[in-house]
């Protein structure tokens, strides 16, 4: 099967610091990939480049075989402009660590905004879908509330519903439980688990929830100091890690539990 996302020797520097030193990674349609690794290893940067929030310093990212960050203009490859990015970005969705709901809109409006504005879908249909989606994440009785009136876990579930409204083919999760109180983590993971079971959407999760990664991912990718150190099926990665660094990393997790 053709990959839906391909990273080809992707580098990224912030100033003098090179955070990604040549990433090659294929994501197949409907594949669930967990990105793990110590903080500062570049996990988040990988998905932020795919969401077009950071531009790679070198290398190519392809979505459905199309070059995301470069476009052809008069026979030459130039940096993509906003139109080009917009034409591809529609296939990607993202859920953020800090939710980033729009505080001046109700939850329902948060979910309806993009489909109505960007996809020009009819308001009444979008509303019906939004209500359905919010019911699915367990917030059907809260649709008229504002984000400030919700708990962290509820906000994050709204953020997921909002991202799902755009029907992306690839969904990115950026440490979505890191900002939550421990007792609220479960409800958010539950929603992600359900999404993973539904199946057709590819998912890339940057996460520190090891058990969860093991449970839902088809593949675990271990990142260390800007390179992919090891990858494979969750059971082999987490149970029989090969590289010393991964062993260290996992050791730190099990000992802290």
């Amino acid at each position, binding site marked *: 099967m053709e990959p839906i996302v391909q990273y080809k020797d992707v580098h990224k520097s912030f100033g003098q610091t090179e955070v990604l030193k040549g990433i090659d990674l294929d994501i197949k349609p409907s594949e669930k990939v967990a990105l793990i690794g110590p903080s500062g290893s570049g996990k988040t940067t990988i998905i932020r480049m795919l969401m077009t929030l950071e531009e790679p310093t070198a290398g190519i990212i392809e979505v459905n075989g199309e070059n995301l960050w470069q476009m052809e203009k008069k026979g030459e490859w130039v940096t993509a402009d906003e139109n080009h990015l917009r034409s591809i970005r529609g296939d990607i969705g993202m859920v953020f660590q800090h939710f980033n709901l729009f505080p001046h809109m109700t939850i329902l409006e948060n979910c309806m905004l993009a489909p109505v*504005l960007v996809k020009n879908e009819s308001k009444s249909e979008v509303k019906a879908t939004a209500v359905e989606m919010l019911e699915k994440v367990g917030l059907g009785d809260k649709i008229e509330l504002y984000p*400030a009136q919700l708990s962290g876990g509820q906000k994050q579930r709204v953020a997921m519903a909002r991202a799902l409204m755009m029907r992306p083919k690839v969904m990115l999760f950026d440490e979505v439980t890191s900002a939550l109180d421990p007792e609220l983590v479960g409800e958010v993971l539950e929603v992600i688990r359900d999404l993973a079971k539904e199946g057709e959407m590819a998912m890339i999760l940057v996460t520190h929830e090891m058990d969860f990664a093991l449970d839902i991912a088809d593949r675990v990718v271990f990142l260390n100091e800007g390179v992919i150190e090891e990858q494979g099926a969750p059971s082999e990665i987490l149970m029989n890690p090969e590289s010393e660094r991964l062993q260290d990393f996992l050791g730190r997790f099990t000992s802290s539990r």
Partner: protein
Amino acid sequence: MTWSWEVFFSVIPMIFKGLWITLGLTLACYLFAAVFGFFWVFISRLPWRPVRWLFGWLAEFIRSTPPLVQLFFIYYAWPMMPVVGVSLNPFVAAILGLGIHFSTYMSEVYRSGIESVDKGQWEASTALNLSTRQKWMKIILPQAIPPTIPMLGNYLIIMFKEVPLASTIGVVAMLHIANDYGAQYYKYVEPLTVVALFFLLLSYPSALLINKLEKKYNRRFDKKTLA
């Protein structure tokens, strides 16, 4: 000098007529400044550094020179310039002069409002594939502007009090009328007192109103809850 209530009451209707001019001019200047303020913000976000730099300095220049000098420049000096020179009627010159001057302050207010919007709001808008225009109109400005309303209101009052400068280039508003009356009858105290009272009568309640607005918005945006 003797205070004459007779003079005091007789100049009130006369100066009251001028009040409308003052108010009209304030409003016109304010609208101009409010709209033109966005122009500075827009320029400051263009990708071309020389342009940003040039206009940044221009705004700084306008902010740090007295509005009176700018008024004189627009009214007296501009018409004498070759090719670009245009002579304006006093009212228009006042709107341009004070409007441009205050627009540089308004742009700073807008900028502070825009910068106070969390970076995550931009990112979420990008992730939802909104266009640049939609981001500004639906997400950023609706959050950036409301908290600045008290500050914007303050500038309205400040401007109201600066508008009498226009009398120096011949806009016949309250101050001008009072001054003329004084020159004619050698009675300055009463008409100028009336002018001051009119100003007080309008700016004090407005200041109270803005205070109230400020409290309201502070309450709303007080706890910076992560949304």
